[in-house]
């Protein structure tokens, strides 16, 4: 009863031999935990490796410039494919979506943290979160069957007013990049709002009170205390939203009219993004070379979202470093 060596007197005290099994349990447990962590890291590496390995043969056989061509000819024997138009449509649709979503998201986040009555802020926030819960295919069919008819008059108006500018050149396409962008904006709105809300909420009370004590109005308090404090958070939230928009598949696939061979710089054109090209081609994944072309497009999309998410992460990290 008096020794503390769990080994020599195994039944001393309440279950004295726990030390030994404890060590085994600890080793197993920390092994599982570390193993899972390593698995996650490896997984990303595997994604890059597998996509690269299966894209390379097709890229070697490609007779067109992968980065410069707008062709997409992947039938057997004569591979000619490039991503120039995919890159443009992917990027411009996401940027227009951001231009719409970010200001509204900031407004919503300010409303939820600075303006809404305290008691209602939480239920209101859950409402916005519900937007994120709606599956993207539902956004797609809603956009296609319902929103499209409302967006067309807006497009006509912009075309007639600003049609001289290439981005707003009039075209006769029903599923336009502009329509897809609006739906994308709605889809990324809750993501940007959620993170912005979190950072606005963390504004130190002292900063806000300091502004108010100087006689600032509510808006001046927001402008001098809340927005500067939350800026890095809003930037990284926007990047995360951008990453989501770049990779969104089914909604964009349903909404965008496929107009191969008729490229235009206009936002009122149709087209395909990386994701929708892959989705549209998914039924013709028959030979490895053909599939490889789509996988090459997927790899570019992966790198694009990786870069955007990494930037978002770095911005957040920097902010943490400042606030600690």
């Amino acid at each position, binding site marked *: 009863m008096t020794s503390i060596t*769990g*080994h020599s007197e195994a039944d001393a005290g*309440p279950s004295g031999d726990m030390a030994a099994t404890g060590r085994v349990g600890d080793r197993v447990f920390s092994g599982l935990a570390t193993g899972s962590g390593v698995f996650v890291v490896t997984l990303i590496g595997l994604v890059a490796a597998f996509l690269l390995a299966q894209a390379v043969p097709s890229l070697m056989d490609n007779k067109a410039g992968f980065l410069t061509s707008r062709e997409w000819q992947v039938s057997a024997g004569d591979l000619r494919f490039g991503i120039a138009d995919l890159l443009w449509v992917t990027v411009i649709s996401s940027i227009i979506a951001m231009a719409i979503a970010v200001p509204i998201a900031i407004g919503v986040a300010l409303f939820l943290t600075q303006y809404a009555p305290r008691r209602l802020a939480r239920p209101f926030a859950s409402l916005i979160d519900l937007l994120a819960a709606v599956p993207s295919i539902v956004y797609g069919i809603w956009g296609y069957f319902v929103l499209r008819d409302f967006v067309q008059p807006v497009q006509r108006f912009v075309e007639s007013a600003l049609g001289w500018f290439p981005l707003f050149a009039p075209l006769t396409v029903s599923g336009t990049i502009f329509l897809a962008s609006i739906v994308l904006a709605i889809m990324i709105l809750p993501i940007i709002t959620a993170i912005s809300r979190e950072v606005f909420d963390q504004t130190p009370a002292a900063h806000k009170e300091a502004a108010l004590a100087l006689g600032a109005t509510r808006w001046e308090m927001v402008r001098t205390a809340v927005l500067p404090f939350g800026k890095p958070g809003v930037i990284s939230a926007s990047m995360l939203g951008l990453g989501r928009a770049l990779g969104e598949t089914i909604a964009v696939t349903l909404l965008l009219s496929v107009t191969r061979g008729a490229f235009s710089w206009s936002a009122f054109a149709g087209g395909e993004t990386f994701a929708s090209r892959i989705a549209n081609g998914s039924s013709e994944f028959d030979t490895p070379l053909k599939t490889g072309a789509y996988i090459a497009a997927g790899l570019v999309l992966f790198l694009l979202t990786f870069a955007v998410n990494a930037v978002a992460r770095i911005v957040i990290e920097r902010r943490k470093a400042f606030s600690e």
Partner: protein
Amino acid sequence: MAQRIDVKDLNVYYGSFKAVEDVSMSIEPRTVTAFIGPSGCGKSTFLRTLNRMHEVIAGGRVEGTVALNGRDLYSKDIDPVAVRRTVGMVFQRPNPFPTMSIFDNVAAGLRLNGVKTKAVLAEAVERSLKGANLWNEVKDRLDKPGAGLSGGQQQRLCIARAIAVEPQVLLMDEPCSALDPISTLAIEDLIDEIKQQYTIVIVTHNMQQAARVSDRTAFFNLAATGKPGRLIEMGDTAKIFSNPTEKATEDYISGRFG
């Protein structure tokens, strides 16, 4: 049950920072030893080395020896987990496990160490709760959450939880600092009772408390911020409080600093 502790030439580090320097002392069985001293003097850190709890914090390590009845707690063949079962600890803030009932809280140490027999657990829970002067207050609601008790009751629950595994030494890190005066009194009475069976070491900021509950008192101090804490003087409580040898002790006790 109660055992003596002999500390020799102990240095405590967190990473490269030396928190406590060159402490040697003997702690007698069946006594209450109080550690007093200003904030940051290393008394809590030192207390944690007596059951290797400092190792829970990243970078914590010691040089020197801590012997429990002659066995060095830091020798290679000793498992820190076994040490903590022998040397129990009560913390500054009451910390009952929130997902567990009163009964389960007290039984936690036994259960997690593999005791499954119902009767053994029930017996140990009753004995420990009685030992912690809590039995009469909670015997009708053992299945209620431990977090529902008052602060003082929670702390006595934590003491019951600590003594349920039948440790030989009980370390208390400012056990009353989060409690009101009446709860504090209850804990102090409890300490007085259980010292018959355990070796008790208590860290306290409250000098009246040290004078009331302890038999022996150790005074820690540090030369300056960033310097390691040191043991300045240790002796019978009556002597430390009436006639300390060191000037620094006298200054601290008479309230001239700290």
